[in-house]
């Protein structure tokens, strides 16, 4: 399964962390609402993708979890993030219900597109469903199909049409205050009640039912259980027709009673119901806790809690609790990401935004990322280097160096040792290079050796290796006096390893025969070799002879030129 929602939500998360503290809270609120909507669209996109692949049993299970998650998130957005005041609150709740009960639209379409809508078996179900959702204009539209048929009863339908048409809906952006709206609504409510008392709709039981709903008769609304299908739909409908100016703190009274009334005595609430109830009770802690347990989905609780924390909603509890809970959940989510072969890179950003334990979690987990390829190792290294995780850098480079050495890739091993700043290992590998040279007569990895630069100074042996290669290069380019001077400086600096002195002598000999090599240099080289005591004595003798001969030649030549 690909995880597009992981990378999308990762982007949203990172964007959220960047919202500055000093932005005025009013602007921030709209930003937070927007972010909340972005997260929800990620959930919906995921659901749509899964539903397209529907048919597999465990997919439907996942889809139902996602539905629950979106439902809860949406409610949290309405109640906590948008935090709508009385008036708007009910409108938002209506939107929430409408969004999660979308079968009404399908049925309405089916009815309206049929040959004779008024005679369709679902006709009245559709009308009532629309009324229950407060979609009065659409209800009127469907009702008009009926009215045109029965001329004699058209006055009754006209009456209902008027009731529906005049139902006051609060306009948050308008000039009307909540109090003014309330007055208007009560007038309308009384009007509906009068119709019932006058038996206006006695001739049509459906219209009578609708009128009772408009009046807010709880028993009648409850009778529409099948059309409502959930207790929270019942709650919102109930509020719409009895208490449209409901204030947030008063919600929980109605929520609890709605749930009890709807479920009745036999049915017991499911985990989802409990979570929604906790939300209506504005008990955020309970919502998060129950979601963590019931939904087994760290993605959801981590991102939602993080957003709520940014809205400063978790701080109403004691100070440590809030940030610890958010960080705990984000760490948990990110740790899960880390086990994935490609998503682990997303996890890094999450850890970066966990001030208390993020760094140590990242340190512990990143060094366990399998270093399958050099490319992957470099990716991991960059992350560590960017964060000054020097011990992890050293360790990863060491592991790569060791692995390269085992596979006899000396150049790679050396590069990694240099990157690890591991002088001891660099020394060891330099010695292997030199051994190889002694055995084969040539160097490998010339590119690397020629371009060591200041890294050469990491260890004496490495410096020698670099310089010795340079010596060979100069020699190859026939720059003999420079080569000789370099060789001399190597001997003077005493960084030539003992094991190589014979080799160096052998290298020096042909040099001494070169014309450009000055007498002075030759003298100095000779004195170095003669002062040495460790070389086998016969060899020493031979060399002394050879050197003496060369020196003699040089003197003769110089002498010849002078005279």
């Amino acid at each position, binding site marked *: 399964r690909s995880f597009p929602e992981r990378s999308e939500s990762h982007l949203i998360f990172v964007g959220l962390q960047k919202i500055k503290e000093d932005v005025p809270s009013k602007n921030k609120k709209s930003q937070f609402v927007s972010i909340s909507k972005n997260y929800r669209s990620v959930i919906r996109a995921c659901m749509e993708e899964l539903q397209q692949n529907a048919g597999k049993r465990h997919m439907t299970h996942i889809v139902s979890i996602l539905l629950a998650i979106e439902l809860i998130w949406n409610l949290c957005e309405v109640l906590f993030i948008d935090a709508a005041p009385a008036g708007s609150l009910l409108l938002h709740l209506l939107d929430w219900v409408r969004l999660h009960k979308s079968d009404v639209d399908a049925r309405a379409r089916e009815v309206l597109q049929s040959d004779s809508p008024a005679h369709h078996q679902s006709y009245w179900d559709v009308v009532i469903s629309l009324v229950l959702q407060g979609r009065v204009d659409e209800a009127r539209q469907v009702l008009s199909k009926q009215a045109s048929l029965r001329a004699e009863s058209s006055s009754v339908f006209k009456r209902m049409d008027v009731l529906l048409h005049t139902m006051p809906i609060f306009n948050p952006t308008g000039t009307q205050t909540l109090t003014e709206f309330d007055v208007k609504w009560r007038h309308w409510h009384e009007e509906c009640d009068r119709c019932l008392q006058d038996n206006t709709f006695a001739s049509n039981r459906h219209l009578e039912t609708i009128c009772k709903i408009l009046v807010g008769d709880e028993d009648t609304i409850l009778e529409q259980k099948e059309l409502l299908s959930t207790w929270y739909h019942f709650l919102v409908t109930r509020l719409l027709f009895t208490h449209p100016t409901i204030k947030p703190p008063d919600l929980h009274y109605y929520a609890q009673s709605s749930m009890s009334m709807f479920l009745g005595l036999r049915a017991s609430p499911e985990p989802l119901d409990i979570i929604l109830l906790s939300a209506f009770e504005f008990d955020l802690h309970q919502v998060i806790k129950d979601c963590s347990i019931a939904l*087994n989905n760290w993605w959801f609780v981590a991102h939602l809690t993080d957003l709520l924390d940014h809205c400063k909603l978790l701080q109403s509890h004691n100070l440590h609790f809030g940030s*610890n*809970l958010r960080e*705990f*959940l984000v*760490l*948990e989510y990110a*740790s*899960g990401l*880390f*086990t994935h072969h490609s998503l682990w890179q997303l996890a890094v950003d999450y850890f970066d935004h966990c001030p208390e*334990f993020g760094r*140590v*979690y990242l340190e*512990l*987990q990143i060094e*366990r*990322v*399998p*270093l399958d390829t050099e490319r992957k190792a470099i990716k991991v290294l960059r992350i560590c280097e960017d964060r000054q995780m020097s011990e992890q850098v050293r*360790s990863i480079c*060491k*592991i790569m160096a*060791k*692995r390269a050495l*085992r*596979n*006899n890739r000396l150049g790679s091993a050396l590069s990694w040792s240099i990157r690890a700043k591991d002088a001891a290992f660099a020394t*060891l590998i330099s010695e292997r290079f030199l051994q190889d040279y002694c055995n084969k007569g040539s160097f490998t990895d010339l590119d690397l050796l020629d371009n060591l630069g200041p890294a050469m100074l990491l260890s004496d042996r490495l410096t020698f290796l670099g310089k010795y290669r340079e010596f060979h290069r100069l020699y190859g380019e026939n720059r003999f006096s420079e080569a000789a001077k370099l060789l001399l400086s190597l001997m003077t600096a005493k960084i030539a390893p003992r094991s190589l002195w014979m080799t160096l002598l052998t290298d020096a000999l042909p040099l001494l025969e070169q014309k450009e090599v000055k007498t002075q240099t030759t003298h100095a080289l000779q004195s170095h070799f003669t002062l040495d005591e460790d070389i086998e004595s016969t060899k020493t003798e031979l060399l002394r002879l050879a050197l003496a001969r060369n020196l003699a030649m040089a003197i003769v030549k110089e002498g010849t030129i002078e005279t």
Partner: protein
Amino acid sequence: MFVAKSIAADHKDLIHDVSYDFHGRRMATCSSDQSVKVWDKGDDGEWHCTASWKTHSGSVWRVTWAHPEFGQVLASCSFDRTAAVWEEIVGESNDKQRGQSHWIKRTTLVDSRTSVTDVKFAPKHMGLMLTTCSADGVVRIYEAPDVMNLSQWSLQHEISCKLSCSCISWNPSSSRAHPPMIAVGSDDSNVTYSGKVQIYEYNENTRKYAKAETLMTVTDPVHDIAFAPNLGRSFHVLAIATKDVRIFKLIPMRRESANSSGPTKFEVQVMAQFDSHNSQVWRVSWNITSTLLASSGDDGCVRLWKANYMDNWKCTGILRGDGSPVNGSGHAAALSAVGVPAAAQMVVGAASAGRKKAQLMPG
């Protein structure tokens, strides 16, 4: 969510230990058939046995990996009173094609006069150090002074624990605030020395290990012990497999004076105790971030334990091994070993079935 997968290990006798390498891509198993097997996880996600060889002349009790900074190195310990260090050598190209690799013995440690019951490498910041414990109650700490030469090990410390030892665990913390610390568990039935877990700490001045603490409340035989990864906390967390699962918190107490010598004193608290296995618990193993503890027991189950943000520990999952009922005694546990390098995967060696091994991965 976990998905169980079974791998036929083809050991000819009980499997006593299973160990992941540092990156979770290699695995080693050891058995009463005296051999060790190494398994590699291929690109296909399947485990392939890439080496199998006789390591000892007795049951092999434990096998453990060195940190990859030291190369591909394993250590094993056995009833034959020895511990051994093995290194993988890069083989011929046709070996590679066949997917086989060779391991050669670098050294045998023969100091113990009794069965060597556990072998562990010390944390890498201490260098290349190997620790063994034996049935005669001696813990030995060896060091390889030249990490490139695995044949040379010198015995640096011998700690006499007075009780038959069954398991050891190093505190992985590399913080300078914590001196090196090792926990030793005992399965001795001796009642005189009733505390079956001892903590030893290294003293910079005396250059020796001294006993810092004995967990007196652990009176039953201890089968496994594991320090949790440290996370920069000032206190230490230690899990113990005994007749139940126990998690201890060790809080170092402030020294009275700056010059006071002697090991650190600890306040010991029980963080959690679980008897859900309702039988002997054989192994405990932490994940990388110490947020998850796995335990295996004679009830044939692996249980996962997790703390919430309020530090309350709860069981977060139960996994059955091969599902066969447990019978027999001693080490014939249905699930004898657990290795949890990450929350991602966990490996369990099924000893009673003898041959099979179940691998459990997140679904």
